[in-house]
């Protein structure tokens, strides 16, 4: 029998107003790949933060037994010292520093307090080899894609002689290729004896590589499924996660009517002065009333840039071509013009540019349409609260109250606030950029249902997504982008994974 490396006994952790963990038990054996799954806000990230010392000993109840000893981590470095490394949901790299500086930051190669940079670079090269990444150690982080950045995070963990590696939704921001890559690496690390705890909402991954999966619901352990016993399949996981059967991932849409063209791009190009290249090139695109179009493509294909160039052009690209709304060519000077014209854009990076993390749910929801709750510029606070309550309930946002700061919500719930904020703006055209990133299956279903309801009411949706399944499951038509160009258009009948990937990698 394998040795137990970690046992978390009866862990309870409360935040003001929420019991995030309620007597959680969690046991991991040496050398296994153990997944933690559960709905948004189930407490997965919190459990891992307890383990890594982010919430130090004394702030939680229960015991952490690691390598046979009860551990009391007072700070993060205490857990690092015994070989536990965690990679957080949000990447923690320094964009303006080089790869090697990032790998060894906080763990510098030094003699008598003086850093030996040459040796650092040599060692960094070793680490990069271990994660199968072919980049120069001098490259700046900001010049790497997210997939590679994620690998750098792992290299950083490996440089600290890690025995237990924790990854919190590492593939959430990755496309299929990069995800595959990462999963391969994890299997590789397993062979070298590294134990791995992974949090993911992508159940395919769980089925593919998990040895065990522990399921959390509402801060409690539900069960641990084992591959060896043949218990790990999507259906079983979902059943335990949401506490009921779920037979479909994509809700059926009532056959809906597709109306006239509401938005059209003609020979549309956007030039990014800072990058010195075109981010969108000669795009032609059509969106009809009551339609969902999917925009697929690899990371960096120019999908987000396309959305921004339409949505009031906040990045100040040089634009060429026509944007036609309701048969009228339009020129937006500012995002506010786009909003007035009935557009809304739910950003891909909710923390970076989607939400006001230090403000509560109420203020976030109302931010994109303050006029809607004001008379003569004076805000009606009560109206505002009512609206926030409405979206909290209708989108099932899990929070202690609408007064809760958005920065303290779990990732998935933040995404719902982001969506609520834009639904309140009452758009005709809704652009969703990776709408289900980091969202659990149940919530995904809810968001898809909302999308369907919206198009039934005559809204039109542009959905940018790296998840092929969702693009295929939800779209009426699919555009595939690569290198800033639209490489092809597929209708829902003829679209399939192969065709999309073929166009995307052309």
């Amino acid at each position, binding site marked *: 029998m394998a040795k137990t490396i970690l046992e978390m006994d009866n862990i309870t952790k409360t935040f*003001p*107003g929420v019991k995030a963990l309620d007597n959680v038990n969690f046991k991991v054996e040496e050398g296994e790949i153990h997944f933690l799954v559960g709905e948004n806000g189930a407490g997965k990230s919190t459990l891992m933060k307890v383990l890594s010392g982010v919430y130090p000993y004394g702030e939680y109840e229960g015991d952490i037994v690691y390598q046979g000893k009860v551990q009391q981590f007072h700070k993060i470095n205490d857990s690092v010292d015994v070989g536990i490394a965690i990679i957080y949901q949000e990447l923690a790299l320094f964009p303006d520093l080089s790869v090697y500086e990032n790998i060894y930051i906080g763990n510098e190669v030094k003699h008598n307090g003086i850093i030996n940079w040459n040796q650092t670079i040599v060692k960094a090269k070793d680490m990069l080899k271990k994660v199968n990444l072919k980049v120069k150690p001098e490259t700046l982080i900001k010049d790497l894609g997210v997939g590679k950045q994620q690998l750098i995070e792992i290299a950083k963990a490996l440089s600290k002689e890690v025995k237990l590696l924790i990854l919190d939704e590492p593939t959430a921001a990755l496309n299929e290729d990069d995800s595959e890559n990462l999963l391969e690496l994890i299997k590789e690390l397993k062979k070298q004896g590294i134990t791995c705890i992974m949090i993911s909402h992508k159940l395919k991954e769980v089925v593919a590589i998990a040895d065990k999966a522990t399921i959390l619901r509402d801060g409690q352990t539900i069960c641990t499924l084992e591959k060896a016993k043949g218990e790990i399949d999507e259906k079983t996981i979902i059943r335990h996660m949401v506490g009921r059967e779920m037979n479909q991932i994509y809700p059926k849409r009532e056959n809906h009517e597709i109306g006239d063209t509401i938005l059209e791009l003609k020979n549309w190009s956007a030039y990014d002065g800072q990058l010195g290249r075109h981010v969108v090139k000669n795009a032609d695109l059509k969106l009809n009333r009551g339609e969902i179009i999917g925009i697929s493509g690899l990371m960096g294909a120019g999908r987000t840039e396309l959305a921004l160039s339409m*949505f*009031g052009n*906040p990045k100040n690209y040089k634009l060429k071509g026509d944007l036609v709304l309701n048969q009228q060519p339009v020129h937006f000077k*500012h*995002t*506010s013009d*786009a*909003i*007035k014209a009935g557009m809304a*854009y739910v*950003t891909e990076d909710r923390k*970076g*540019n*989607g*939400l*006001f*993390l*230090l*403000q509560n749910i109420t*203020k976030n929801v*109302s*931010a*994109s349409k*303050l*006029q809607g709750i*004001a008379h003569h*510029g*004076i*805000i009606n*606070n*009560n109206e505002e*609260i*009512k609206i926030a309550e409405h979206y909290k309930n209708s989108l099932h946002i899990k929070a*202690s109250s609408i*007064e*809760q*700061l958005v920065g*303290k919500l779990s990732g998935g719930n933040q995404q719902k606030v982001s969506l609520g*904020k834009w639904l309140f703006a009452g758009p005709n055209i809704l652009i969703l950029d990776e709408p289900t990133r980091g969202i659990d299956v149940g919530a995904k279903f809810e968001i898809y249902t909302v999308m369907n309801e919206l198009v039934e009411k005559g809204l039109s949706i542009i959905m940018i997504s790296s998840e092929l399944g969702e693009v295929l499951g939800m779209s009426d038509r699919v555009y595939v982008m690569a290198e800033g160009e639209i490489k092809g258009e597929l209708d829902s009948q003829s679209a399939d994974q192969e065709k999309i990937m073929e166009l995307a990698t052309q």
Partner: protein
Amino acid sequence: MKILQETQQLIKDNIRDYGMYIALFVIMLTFNMMTDGTFMSSRNISNLLDSAGYIAVLAVGMTLVIVIRHIDLSVGYVAGFLGAIAAILLMQQGLSIYLVIPIILALGIIIGLANGFLIAQLGIPAFVASLAGMLIFRGALLKVTEGTGTIIVQNEVFNALGNGFIPSLGMVNARHLLTIIIGVLGVLFFVYSELKTRHDKVKYNFDVISVPIFAVKLTLISLIIAYITWILAGYNGFSWTLMIVLFVTIVYHFISNKTVLGRQIYAVGSNPEAAHLSGINVKKITYLVMGSMSMLAALSGILYTARLQSATTTAGMLFELDAIAAAYVGGVSSAGGVGKVTGAIIGAIVMASLTNGMNLLGVGISYQYMIRGGVLAGAVIFDVLTRKRGK
């Protein structure tokens, strides 16, 4: 007991706000005891509030500047320079005061918009842009006072802004009548608006604090307003400075809490990119906040010049640091998006109380600086600690 629990919860939720008021209360009480009652005498309180005036208006503007993640180091010498210009226009050009004041405020706005241009349009860090402004206006102040040195202002109306009091309309029991009337109106207005807010909330079925606690809160705050009014009515009544500061506070408090504009300011501070994508014009907000800052600097200059009844060559020195300190004591956060106008006023009063009290006690100037520095550090430490645990 339920009421006890509710009180505890309230204190826990609002520890940062209450902490500041409690600190002010403790400081005042301590000084009062140490000076055998001189500190809380009508005359001294009146004096103290007046001496806080020109920093308080700066602190209000500075709070909003810090909320949108900028800083303005130029406000001190802008105040000094515009104060001198006011004196020149009044004394050397013989302009009417009713012309001079709008001109000075308008000049302030123009200076602020220039700052806004550097920061919003050209993307220069506010620290550097306003540092340049600080040097430029220091030079400008020296230049315009070069020939004359200190300019004495002999204009009663103007000087009254810094030293004068509102008319009494008669005395009752040796108390200033108009002051008492304003105080009573203030209490009535406060009670009315609290009741109305509560009534609205009940109408919408929202949670409200329980009746006994609400009653205690109403009584307590009414008593404080009444007490301050009573004290001041026993001397010369409300000063013009105090009325101006009150006016500025009420207007800015209203704008920042109740209006779309205010919400946009806080949104920009909280996350500029998200604000932009929410359709908020970040540049416009930057212009507005910087413009308002320098307008308040102009007002500060007017108040200071009027208080000294002259424009000096060193006027405005270190005002910016006092204003920044007051804003931080008042709970603004340099991470952006957090900070209250009322906090800034309390912060300014805390700092002025310290200076005033220590002066009464005859504490040496060297210790005064150290103690004020310590209080500033303490306030920010308290802030950081309570915020960490906050909701």
